[in-house]
């Protein structure tokens, strides 16, 4: 023993301190918050020689929501508070009583669900002014998405006894077919000020 040189052990007690330091650095710089938002899908661009077509949609199938430069809401021609928009939109999308003024219902065969009467051709048209505030626009979008989400939830509770989010993907797809999200953000037009004329 005496002849061999003894390699003195490296003192590793400061190792913990060093790693603590690093740990704290990463703790501070970390940002766990995931970004959230309202997901939407834009329509494909128009071909250069294609004119913005006025697709012939029956009047009963279209739900027009306009937001003007003063952030006022006009739904189907009447002024409305944004808080009432959700119920109005639900009523429109669902058309429970088969009202002739609300979108027409068609019988569609959807797997897992069988024959369901849905308002296949309904469109929600959202139009805004150049000066509309972004917050107001998001609120309207939010209410419309909320209307769809509530309808989907109600339907899935009724059919599967579970919330829409908890369903397996196949069943979610089926419900999406019953209540497809059809929010059309029209080609931009310039409305002047409060004057919410023809569209």
């Amino acid at each position, binding site marked *: 023993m005496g002849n061999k040189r003894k390699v003195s052990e490296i003192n590793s007690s400061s190792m913990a301190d060093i790693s603590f330091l690093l740990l704290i650095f990463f703790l501070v710089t970390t940002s766990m918050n995931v970004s959230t938002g*309202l*997901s939407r899908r*834009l329509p494909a*661009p128009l071909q250069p020689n294609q004119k913005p077509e006025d697709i012939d949609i029956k009047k009963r199938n279209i739900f027009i929501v306009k937001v003007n430069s003063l952030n006022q809401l006009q739904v189907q021609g009447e002024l409305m508070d944004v808080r009432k928009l959700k119920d109005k939109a639900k009523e429109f999308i669902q058309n429970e009583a088969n009202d002739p003024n609300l979108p027409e219902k068609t019988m569609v065969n959807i797997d897992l669900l069988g024959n369901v009467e849905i308002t296949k051709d309904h469109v929600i048209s959202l139009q805004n002014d150049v*000066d509309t505030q972004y917050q107001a626009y*998001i609120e309207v*979008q939010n209410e419309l*998405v909320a209307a769809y989400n509530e309808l989907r939830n109600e339907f899935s509770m009724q059919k599967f006894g579970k919330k829409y989010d908890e369903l397996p993907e196949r069943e979610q797809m089926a419900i999406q077919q019953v209540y497809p999200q059809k929010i059309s953000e029209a080609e931009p037009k310039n409305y002047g000020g409060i004057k919410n004329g023809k569209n």
Partner: protein
Amino acid sequence: MAKIRKDEKREMPALSTSSLPDIIFMLLFFFMAVTSMKEVTFKVSIKAPEATELQKLENKSLVRYIYVGKPTPEFQKAYGSETRIQLSDAFADVKDLENYIVSERSAMKENDQSSLTVSIKADKDTHMGIITDIKQALRRAYALKISYAAVKRTTY
């Protein structure tokens, strides 16, 4: 009968701390893995609008951000106080947007390209005119999956 002897001093063995670094390292690696450093320095001030029906943006590597808002005070001298667009680290114009998206997309892996999502982070007082311009530019660039960044609404 068992006899409890209290008088006899039993020495508590020293707690071994040799595994402490390992534990800390484990924590460290966890935070290193989940951490994402702030990607950009904001040159525009953004107060996100509020909403309730929020969806999480799942895959961060597939998301590109467009920041819209008024320049922060230190940039107001140079850029004015009108609403501006910021792409990654610099101010940009609506007409730069298409090129930006196209180049970002071509830098992505081929099978990820179709799932590119553009998140529009705009200040809640922005006028819709500029948002509409952005949306039109995104349509032209075929970046059709978008997300309007918003935060959870706490009060009505």
